[in-house]
Structures are given as structure tokens and as C-alpha cells.
């Protein structure tokens, strides 16, 4: 198992965000219904990730990071709940959730000192996943805060870097006793 990447600082993540973990029926147009609702009601989305949620492809889980400043969270949840294909909504406050996100970045070798780049990759717990004669692609999965930090370092050093992030996925944080029972 890969070592846990460093957690980094979290100031770069928007403070007013909330995570909604939305279980939906996996039917045509469901993503469009959810996205359309957000734009129609003036709710802002920071990020959105979708993946199948069960073995039979009957349900998908959409993880939405919402701007809780743009509308009261109860309104966002209430309106989402009215979509017929929305089965269940879990509202995760950031402190109650474990969040992870994936970042890919391609660095041009001409801009990079090899040793420095390798050190940066090692420090962040990132890995090199592809390379060519003129570029290197690195990957980091971790908390959004860790990714923010890594992104800051990379963009500072490499002006023509290309960065792609997935948006976060999240599950409820387990309470201590559960964790303890798992490790015992």
C-alpha cells in the first residue's frame, strides 16, 4: 500500500463549502437533471464527481461540493430531493468527511530541474506516471488541501504546466470506536 500523502494546508480550499453525496438512479439524463437544477436555482458547484455506486449499475453516486454561501444548504438539499431520480442525499460537513481528490500534471522538462522536480514529487507523495523526451506527467491523490499545496508549488515553478483535477469524492468520517475495532 502506498504511503499516505502529506495532508498539507487547507486554507486554499473554500471554507464555505459543503459536500453532498447524492445517490441517484442510473438513468439517462440524470446528471443533466442535477446540473440543470443547480444552474436554474442559482446554486454554485465547486466540483462534481460521478461514479457507479453498486454492482448492478442501478445507482450512481454523485459527489457535489456546493458553495453554501450561494444558497442555504437546506434549499439545495430540498430542491435536489424533489428530483424523482434522486434516491438519497447525505450532507457531509467538511469536518465530518474524509475527502480525496486526484491531480494529474504535465511538466515540460525544459522548465524543470530534474533533481528539484523529483524532490517535489517525493515530498508531496506524488508519483511519475508517464514521460516522454520533453515532458513528465505526475499524479497525486490526497486531500484537496494537499492537492492545492502541490498545485501551488508546481505552478510557481513551471509556467507552462498543464494541470487537471478530478474534483473531490467523500465519505463520512468513521468515528473513533469504529476505527479502533477495525485495527484490532
Amino acid at each position, binding site marked *: 500500500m502506498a504511503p499516505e500523502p502529506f495532508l498539507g494546508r487547507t486554507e486554499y480550499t473554500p471554507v464555505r463549502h459543503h459536500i453532498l453525496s447524492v445517490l*441517484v*438512479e442510473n438513468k*439517462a*439524463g440524470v446528471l*443533466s*437533471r442535477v446540473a*440543470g*437544477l443547480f444552474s*436554474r436555482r442559482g446554486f454554485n458547484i465547486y466540483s462534481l464527481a460521478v461514479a457507479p455506486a453498486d454492482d448492478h449499475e442501478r445507482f450512481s453516486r454523485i459527489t457535489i461540493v456546493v458553495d453554501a454561501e450561494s444558497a*442555504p444548504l*437546506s*434549499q439545495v438539499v*430540498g*430542491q435536489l*430531493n*424533489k*428530483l*424523482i*431520480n*434522486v*434516491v*438519497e442525499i447525505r450532507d457531509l460537513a467538511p469536518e465530518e468527511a474524509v475527502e480525496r481528490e486526484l491531480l494529474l500534471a504535465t511538466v515540460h522538462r525544459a522548465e524543470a530541474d530534474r533533481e528539484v522536480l523529483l524532490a517535489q514529487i517525493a515530498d508531496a507523495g506524488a508519483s511519475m506516471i508517464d514521460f516522454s523526451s520533453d515532458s513528465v506527467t505526475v499524479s497525486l491523490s490526497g486531500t484537496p488541501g494537499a492537492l492545492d499545496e502541490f498545485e501551488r508549488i508546481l505552478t510557481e515553478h513551471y509556467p507552462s504546466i498543464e494541470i487537471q483535477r478530478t474534483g473531490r469524492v467523500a465519505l463520512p468520517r468513521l468515528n473513533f470506536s469504529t476505527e479502533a475495532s477495525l485495527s484490532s
Partner: protein
Amino acid sequence: MKITGAQALIKSLEALGTEVIFGYPGGAILPVYDPIIDSTIRHVLVRHEQGAGHMAEGYAQATGRPGVAMVTSGPGATNIVTPIANAYMDSTPLVVITGQVATGSIGTDAFQECDITGITMGITKHNWLIKDASEIPRVIAEAFHVATTGRPGPVLVDVPKDVSQSEMEWYDPPMPEALDLPGYHPQVTGNRDLIAQAASLMAQAEQPVLYVGGGVLKARASEALVQLAEAIHAPVVTTLMARGAFPDTHPQCLGMPGMHGNYTAVTAMQKSDLLISLGARFDDRITGKIDAFAPNAKIIHVDIDPAELGKVRRPDVGISGDCRVVIEELIMACQKETFSTLESWWTQLNEWQARFPVHYEESQDGGMLKPQTIIEMLAANSPDDTIVVSGVGQHQMWASLHWTFDYPYTWINSGGAGTMGFAVPAAIGVKAGRPERTVWAIDGDGCFQMTAQELVTARSEGIPVKVAILNNSYLGMVRQWQEMFYEERYSEVYLSSDLPNYVMWAESMGCVGIRVDTPEEVLPAIEKANSINDRPVVIDFRIDASEKVFPMVPSGSSNDEIVVHPSQQEGN
């Protein structure tokens, strides 16, 4: 039994109790029009798809059953978008069936193709694109269930041509409990603790107001409402969507609140210490400037849609549930409380009523016709259970203010969306669903010109509605705003006093046309119209263009700044 998708669609509609479809055929829906010939369902052939939608809305609002409309793909479908949006705003149960190009052609910009499920996503409760004929009975059952339960609303089912042409093995549309809708569970009963809290707040209140919205009519809760109101002695205001939900002649009825509501209804809400909102949604036309709305009132908010609770104003007690069920639960809970007769509150209310009744100045000898007089005479000379349908604008407000509504489901209009042209087709739908009733459309000349062609439908289908055009040759409400707020700079509001000739137009559509210019002609015209039952009647009432709707709360102002009729203002 193998049948075609088209046959399955009609058979499903029959099985779910459809008695009338308002529709218009075309290429993609063609296969479905064949089995209609052999069906028990009546088909009303409209003259424009918008008419089909509004007819279905009128039918639904008058009968409580879902309205069904059927149109073809592309422009047929886009023409019915306005009624769908209107039904969404007013929570009217509507099932709209649209034809679609064949599944293999979807996405190729085929002839008369449009993405109608995409277009209507934001204005339907839900919509479906059927991909296989075997889905038809199930989807139609889901569509009816979703449209009619919870907070009612429009739904749309898009049926590609190859789906309606292909064969399927028939099965009966599943009963609601057998439907697979894991994300749809409307909450019907109220939370017991919240009901008790609400009853206790109601017993403590000194200046309560029952704020009644369209949800009370949707829930068929009028009788329960009267019981609750009498048990707690509170005054009742009925919003534009709820006129008739509580009898106007009941001593506790204050009438309509809102931008053009009467002084006492508006001010009672404003000064209230407890608003008991039943099936209403704190619309901006009710609250005026929201920050200044009913500043001292605690709020009990009952709505079938949990998202309405706190959307505009945070409730002290928010109860999601069906209005009839919750009102009945409240009545039970109130039996454990004692209620005062609210004497000082009623003294205040009666004083306002005496000082600021809804008022207008009747025309003097030789003066022009006043629209309010016409409405009062129409009401006095038509059967008690007459259903009134209106368009949108000054005539709508006058009708709501000056007709006395004593029965539920006798007032039908376009509230939330404010769709001009609603009255004529909606009245036709009402009359199709309630043929034994007298149906009067009270319309403006601007509205009438938008959808009048449906009177051809009315005549040819034998649906004898009556239309009173309050004709001031202006887009009157816009004119009123330009007069009051734009220094009388009238911009693009004058229609014409001689174009069209409404009598000739009505006659050409097979209706009786009558023109009324003077006060003496009003009663004979109404009596003549009410005596004609074999064809539609249109009366062109020529009214005073300078007449305005009062009271009025200027847009964006606090309800405290209500403007009453000039003759009631201080100094007069």
C-alpha cells in the same frame, strides 16, 4: 396479447381513467392517432398546441383529475412549452405526450426533431423518453402517479415514432404501490410534535391570520379549512391561487392579499403576530419587499413540498404534509387548546374593512363603462356555481377582487407564470370537464388576441364557453405602470379601438358576438349570453381605459406602503 406501442399508449391512458385528450396530430405522433379512432377517450382537436396545454390545465384545475395533452415532435412540442411552464408554476397535474423522431434518428437533427425532454427538464416534475414499447404501460402509470401525487405538476412523456410502431406484449399499467420509484416518497401526514407545537402557537396568538394558498385546493381541504378557521376564530386570506378555497361571504374571510389585494387582507398579514400558511409559498406578489414583510409574525408553514419550508421565510414551525391531512390533524390538536375570540383583533380588522373596502367609482350618466361594474353584474346574473376563468392583467385582478367566490374550483387563472392568453383555451378545458356548469372567461383584449382562435375548437367540438372581453384597447396593466411609474410615457401599450372587429371575429368563428358600449346594454347582453347554450358567446365590453387596479403595492415596496383608491387616500 401483442399490440403496437401506439395501441399500448392509448390503452394505458384508458386504463388510467383518461376521458379526454386535448391534442394536435403530426408526423412523429401519427401512429398514436390511429388507435384514437377506436378509443373511448374523447379527443379535442385544438387549433394550436398551446391551446391544448391550457385546455388540459383548465380541465385539471376544474376537475382535480390530471389533464392530458398530446402533440407531435419539434414545433408541436415547443408550442406546448408555455402551458407546461404555467402548470409547473401553479402545480397543476398535467400529462403531456409528445411524439419524437425514431430512436435511430435522435441526435441527427432529423425533420421536426427537438430535445423536448431537455427543454422541459426545468419545468416538469419529471419527464421520460421511452426507448422501447414494452416500457409504455409502466411509464404512463409512473407519469400519472408523479403528476397527481405529492405537489402536483406537469410531466412529459416523449414517444419516438418507431417505439409507437413496434409491437409489445400488453400488460396492465402497474398500480402506484407496484411502481419502482425509489426516489419518490411524498410525505403526506404531518409530524405529530410539530402539529402540537403549531396548535400551541395558534392558541397563544393574539393577531393570527390563516394565509391560504392554492395547495388547499389541490389537497381538497376547503371543508377542513372552514372547521379549523371557525375553531380558532382567525381571519382568512385567500391568495390569487386560492380564491374560493374559503367562502368570500364567510364572516372570517378578508379576501385576497398581495400586490393588488384589498387593504385589510394585506394589512392584517403585515400586522399579524402569527401567519398560518397553508399550501402557500410566500410568493413575491404576496410578500412585497420580503425584508419588510410581516415583521412581527411567527410563521407556521404547512406545505406538501418540504423545499418550500424556509425557501423565502424561515418558519417557526414548518410542517411538510398534505394540507387536508395536516389541517385535520391541527383541528384534533386544537381541541386540546383553548382559543379566545380575538376580540380586539377583530375590532381592528373591522375598522380597516369599514374604512378601506375595495372601492371604485361607478360611472356617471353618459360616462364610460367600468370593468368592476361589469364583473359585479356578471356575478349577480350568472348561476352561483359559475366557473370564472381569467387571463393575466388588470381584468384578472378586477375579476378576483370583484367577483364573490363562495365555492372551491370556481376561479381558474394563471397565477405564478402570468401567461397572457390563458383564459380562452383554459375555459374550454374547464367546460369539457364540467359541461353542466356555466363557464365565463373574463379576458382582456390583449390576452384575447393571443389565443382566440381556440373558439373555433370550442364551436366545432360543441363546447359553449362564454367570453367577456374587458376591452380598453390597451395592454392595461402595463399602461397602469407606465402611468404611475414612468410619468405617463406610454410605450407600445395601445392596441386599437377598431382593430380587430371582435363581433365579426367571433361570428366568423361560429360564436355569437355582442358589443356593449353603454351601461344600459350590459344586463341585456349578459342575459342573452347566459341564455345561449349551443355555441360560444363573446361580449366585447368597451371599458374606460383610464381605470386602474387599486389597491396596489408598488413593485419592490413594503406592504406597509399600500396605495388605496385615490378617493380613499388622506386629504380626500
